[in-house]
């Protein structure tokens, strides 16, 4: 955030005006929210502010929109809500933002300070509720404390490992008079993120890398947060080792690059999963050894030494022991690593050819793919692949959570950072539409597609009204398999095909195109592969209204490969009961 000393410094005003002036001083240009009693004093000065306030239809939409905005711009997203139910509706997006390290500032109104603790109307202890998944939070009861709380909130949300910060402000603090004083430089005794990595750690890392015969770059979302893609590309070129990008890191390194093996993890490529398993060195950059990546931890990458670079010291040794921990900003880390590695490689360079050859062989033998349905119906993977191809690599994609999310990660090529937005750590159904709304607000000249599930869409589609009324023309592809597909897939595989409560009947109800039209969008439908490209192109040609396409796809498609939960990555399946033919591979 660009902060500057506002001209109103030293002026008398209400706490509410002070809040709005503080947000302006913090560089906020847009916020998403809904008013209500406790926050109402703030909405009066919001009426006159330079900040664009987008009136959403549900506070969850405000939170995910702020996240989408933040993920695309790299700046803090801002959402605002009233006390009680308004504030609790922000709980899911805050948890989501914490899991995916998104800089978010949430402002909530609280009941008047004299009423706190009395179970007053719309009183909820939102500071207590959100303690576990905010990076920090505040309860402000004195109007004089508002500017400092806001300035600190933006500082904390956007620096170090980014995360959500909530500022809860009692109604009387908003109503009372105060003298606005914008704080100077923020210094917090208990918060001093370390940006510059230790030189000795960099040298140790460079040595280890130069000695390795089977290194792999394990790239996480931190690389995108640190804006370190360019530096990463240089580092990879210098070493010439294979790269895997996690679900949160898609786009951090171009999919088209010959050293890119794809995504690791539960639905990763055989090559990416195997590269981690067989490596002798993991060069871990901004990743956190999540269970969806490691599979059964005790069998994960057992022969590998680990370099773990992260800005958050608590990630070091949390799940996997790090032989060389490097704490610091990733861009600084990679920038320092480049010359150090060059120097090491000039002394001693291991031959990576056999390792690269076996990984290339795996990639060629087990590419991502899918079978088209026998009955000639629409394939969900094909729909997603065609949207990616037709819309191109400048597009920003968001997704919901489920099969469509995994296919959107697998079958769209990501070439640039901040073009793939999804709910990775939390797996929040309903993220797709509001995140796309926020993304489009942050990047109005870029095409934004939400690849959504029929289940997810029904959780947050109300924000399409917001989009229609506020000139936010996103495009939504509903991958309508008339079921909670990912859960259904687990029922197919692990519960004998007993489909308890996963049938949504969403080819009957709702009528998605009609629903879209009712919300002021263009509604289209497609159930025939022959119409697929034309329907996508039709959506691409509409830029003055949101567009929703109901893609009525085959319901039995499954996401492959798969490492079943709790099993080892070594047990990766490429289809039902089908493992790769390891005997024919030299690893």
């Amino acid at each position, binding site marked *: 955030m660009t902060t500057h000393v506002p001209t109103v410094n030293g002026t008398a005003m209400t706490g509410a005006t002070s809040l709005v002036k503080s947000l302006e001083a913090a560089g906020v240009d847009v916020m998403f929210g809904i008013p209500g009693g406790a926050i109402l004093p703030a909405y009066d000065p919001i009426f006159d502010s330079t900040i664009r306030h987008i009136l959403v239809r549900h506070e969850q939409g405000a939170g995910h929109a702020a996240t989408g905005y933040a993920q695309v711009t790299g700046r803090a997203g801002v959402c605002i809500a009233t006390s009680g139910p308004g504030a609790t509706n922000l709980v899911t997006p805050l948890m989501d933002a914490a899991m995916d390290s998104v800089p978010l500032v949430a402002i909530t109104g609280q009941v008047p300070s004299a009423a706190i603790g009395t179970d007053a109307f719309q009183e909820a202890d939102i500071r207590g509720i959100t303690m576990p998944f905010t990076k920090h939070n505040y309860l402000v009861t004195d109007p004089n404390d508002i500017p400092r709380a806001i300035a600190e909130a933006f500082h904390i949300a956007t620096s170090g490992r980014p995360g959500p910060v909530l500022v809860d402000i009692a109604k009387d603090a908003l109503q009372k008079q105060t003298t606005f004083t914008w704080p100077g430089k923020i210094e917090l005794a208990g*918060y001093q993120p370390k940006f510059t990595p230790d030189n000795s750690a960099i040298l140790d890392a460079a040595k280890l890398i130069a000695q390795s015969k089977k290194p792999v770059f394990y790239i996480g979302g931190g690389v995108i947060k640190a804006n370190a893609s360019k530096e990463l590309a240089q580092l990879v070129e210098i070493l010439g080792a294979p790269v895997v990008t996690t679900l949160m890191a898609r786009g951090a390194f171009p999919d088209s690059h010959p050293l890119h093996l794809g995504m690791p993890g539960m639905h990763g490529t055989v090559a990416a999963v195997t590269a981690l398993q067989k490596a002798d060195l993991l060069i871990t950059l901004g990743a956190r050894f999540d269970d969806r990546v490691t599979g059964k931890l005790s069998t994960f990458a057992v022969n590998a030494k680990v370099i773990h670079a992260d800005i958050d010291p*608590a990630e070091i040794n*949390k799940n996997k022991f790090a032989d060389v921990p490097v704490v610091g900003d990733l861009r600084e880390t990679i920038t320092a690593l480049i010359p150090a590695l060059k120097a090491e490689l000039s002394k001693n360079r291991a031959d990576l050819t056999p390792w690269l050859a076996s990984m290339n062989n795996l990639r060629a033998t087990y590419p991502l793919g899918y079978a088209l349905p026998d009955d000639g119906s629409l394939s969900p993977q094909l729909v997603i692949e065609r949207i990616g191809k037709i819309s191109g690599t400048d597009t920003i994609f968001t997704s919901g959570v489920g099969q469509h999310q995994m296919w959107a990660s697998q079958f769209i090529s990501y070439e640039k950072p901040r073009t793939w937005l999804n709910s990775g750590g939390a797996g929040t159904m309903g993220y797709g539409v509001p995140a796309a709304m926020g993304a489009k607000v942050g990047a109005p000249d870029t095409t934004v597609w939400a690849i959504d599930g029929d289940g997810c869409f029904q959780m947050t589609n109300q924000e399409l009204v917001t989009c229609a009324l506020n000139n936010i023309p996103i495009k939504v592809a509903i991958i309508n398999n008339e079921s909670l597909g990912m859960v259904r897939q687990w029922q197919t595989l692990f519960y004998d095909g007993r489909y308890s409560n996963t049938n949504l009947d969403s080819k009957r109800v709702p009528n998605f195109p009609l629903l879209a039209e009712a919300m002021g969008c263009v509604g289209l439908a497609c159930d025939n592969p022959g119409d697929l490209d034309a329907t996508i192109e039709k959506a691409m040609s509409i830029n003055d209204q949101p567009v929703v396409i109901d893609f009525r796809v085959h319901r039995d498609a499954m996401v492959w490969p798969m490492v079943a939960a709790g099993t080892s990555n070594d047990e990766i399946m490429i289809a039902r009961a089908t493992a790769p033919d390891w005997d024919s591979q030299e690893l």
Partner: protein
Amino acid sequence: MSIHTLEVLVENEPGVLARVAGLFARRAYNIDTLVVGPTENSEISKMVIQVNLEGHSLEQVMAQLDKLITVISIKELIDGAVKSSKHDTQPDYQN
């Protein structure tokens, strides 16, 4: 049993005990005893926490505590220097 004693300096502000206690509870760290008292500086309180590690690493407990913005400093008492163990990975589970 592996009991360690931590001296934690925190900002003296409402909710700080809840932040620390909540962290221990949600990360399944066991507190054996906890004492909070004032320091010469009225803005800073001192917590003395006995933690029973039971499978967690002291390094991880301290790193998580340190992420709390209201925690200013942490040091281990009695045992002196903090050693990090090599095998502090989590047990396997199905999620």
